[in-house]
């Protein structure tokens, strides 16, 4: 009953990259729906990577190369990527019907993940404008909040402290130039 429609589930994973309970990747092969679904997506990703690698290898010139040209290794890696991708895809599709548990993730958490990605992008954009300390404070406070901090306001104070200490140590003392805002930090 809990088995979702294949196409539907894959699409949701494709868009948001699902998660599951096995994080370290070293345990026994997890077989629940989310793991199998992610493995299928990874198989597709490997196939795409193979296509890009092989296409790029084909465009290389052999001029000036020794006995082994610049395209030999990419060709080899691309082929192996394709093989691994297909195997992974086939294996997960076979496991799909028997995998217990849903493939999706609660919508709230996906929303949080999307918010973090947006936060990271905003960070990259505003970093050169408002400087390291202000943007890192925002990154810290925002990330702590999204990860479930019960005291969002303390996050700002701690984030500011952390960013300021990093800035003083690395920019002012050691001399690694970090981006500064109009107020000098």
């Amino acid at each position, binding site marked *: 009953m809990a088995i979702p429609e294949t196409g539907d589930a894959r699409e949701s994973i494709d868009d948001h990259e699902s998660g599951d309970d096995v994080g370290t990747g070293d345990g026994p092969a997890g077989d629940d729906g989310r793991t199998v679904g992610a493995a299928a997506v990874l198989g597709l990703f490997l196939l795409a990577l193979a296509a890009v690698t092989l296409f790029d290898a084909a465009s290389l010139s052999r001029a000036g190369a*020794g006995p082994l040209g610049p395209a030999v290794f990419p060709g080899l890696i691309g082929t192996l990527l394709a093989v691994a991708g297909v195997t992974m895809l086939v294996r997960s599709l076979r496991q799909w019907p028997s995998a217990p548990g849903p493939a999706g993730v609660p919508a709230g958490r996906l929303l949080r993940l999307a918010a973090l990605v947006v936060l990271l992008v905003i960070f990259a954009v505003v970093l050169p404008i408002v400087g390291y*300390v202000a943007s890192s404070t925002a990154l810290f406070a925002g990330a702590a909040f999204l990860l479930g901090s019960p005291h969002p306001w303390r996050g700002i*104070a701690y984030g500011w402290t952390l960013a*300021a200490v990093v800035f*003083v140590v690395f920019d002012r003392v050691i001399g690694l*130039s970090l981006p500064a805002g109009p107020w000098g*930090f």
Partner: protein
Amino acid sequence: MDQRRSGPVRRARSRRVAPVVTAAVATVALLVTQGLGQRPEGLHALEGRQLRLMAPAAPGGGWDQTSREIQTALRDRIGRVEVYNVDGAGGTVGLSQYAQLPADPTELMVTGLIMVGAIQTNHSPVTLAETTPLARLTTDYEVVVVPADSPLRGIDDLVTAMRTDLRSVSIAGGSAGGVEQILAGLIADEIGKNPSKVNYIAHSGGGEMLTTLLSGRSDAAISGLSEILPQIEAGRVRPLAVSSAERLPTLPDVPTLRERGVDVELSNWRGIVAPAGISAEEERVLEDMLMRMARSPRWQETLRRRGWGDAALAGPEFERFLASEQRRIGRVLEKLDLR
């Protein structure tokens, strides 16, 4: 009652206050260190602002060393100069980032022959035309070396071997399209061979190149003089010829290529550029500053210690030199098939 309650209450309050206190302390630290180490003096055209100098290479590389020596030499004259590294691809990564800077005369970048070549081989969308060339400062000549026990006695032997069978002579050197490969290509071209057929073995660093040579796997190697000098002095490698116009004071017994009938001269020069669009006055001030530095005893001592040649050249002469180098290197790279 009060006694018993005050503990947790105080702790809760301190927990609320502590972050604010630490943040305040950190802010004070930020404000106190503001302007630390900046000593703006002289150079009115720069309005007393601090110079920033980009080394378009990793820490430890040739451009990085040049930048940090300039930083030291300029400290007495204009105060602290900030050096930062943007690593990658013969300096073209740094160049593409540098070209986006506004026409600010306090933003400088180190450049050199390698960048001239890399712009072409990497099809860099940005060229040195998008900068204001200020001055050439140093030069490092190249040396052709063989292992100490090599059967090749002199550069004539090497040339003969290359004439007989070009592919059978392996030459180790630095990165593909770099100074060493350019020199190998120039030599091959000069003796009537196809430069793109040279069996050139590229390496990412002098250390790796040296092991290839000393493990007896390559027949010869080309290296910058300052880098290989310790090995020559230790007798591990034997110099066959230098790429300078005249014999070098550090290696008076080693002939130049030209002397031995190979009409090639190549120097790995390094210089400084400013962003495009700075005013003529700003350009003059910066060039003047660099030329004064180049004449200072401190800089001369640096050159001696590093084994670099003095190649101070500024203004229109430098721009003419740059243009001629771009043409010459472009031709070689085309023949090397590194277009």
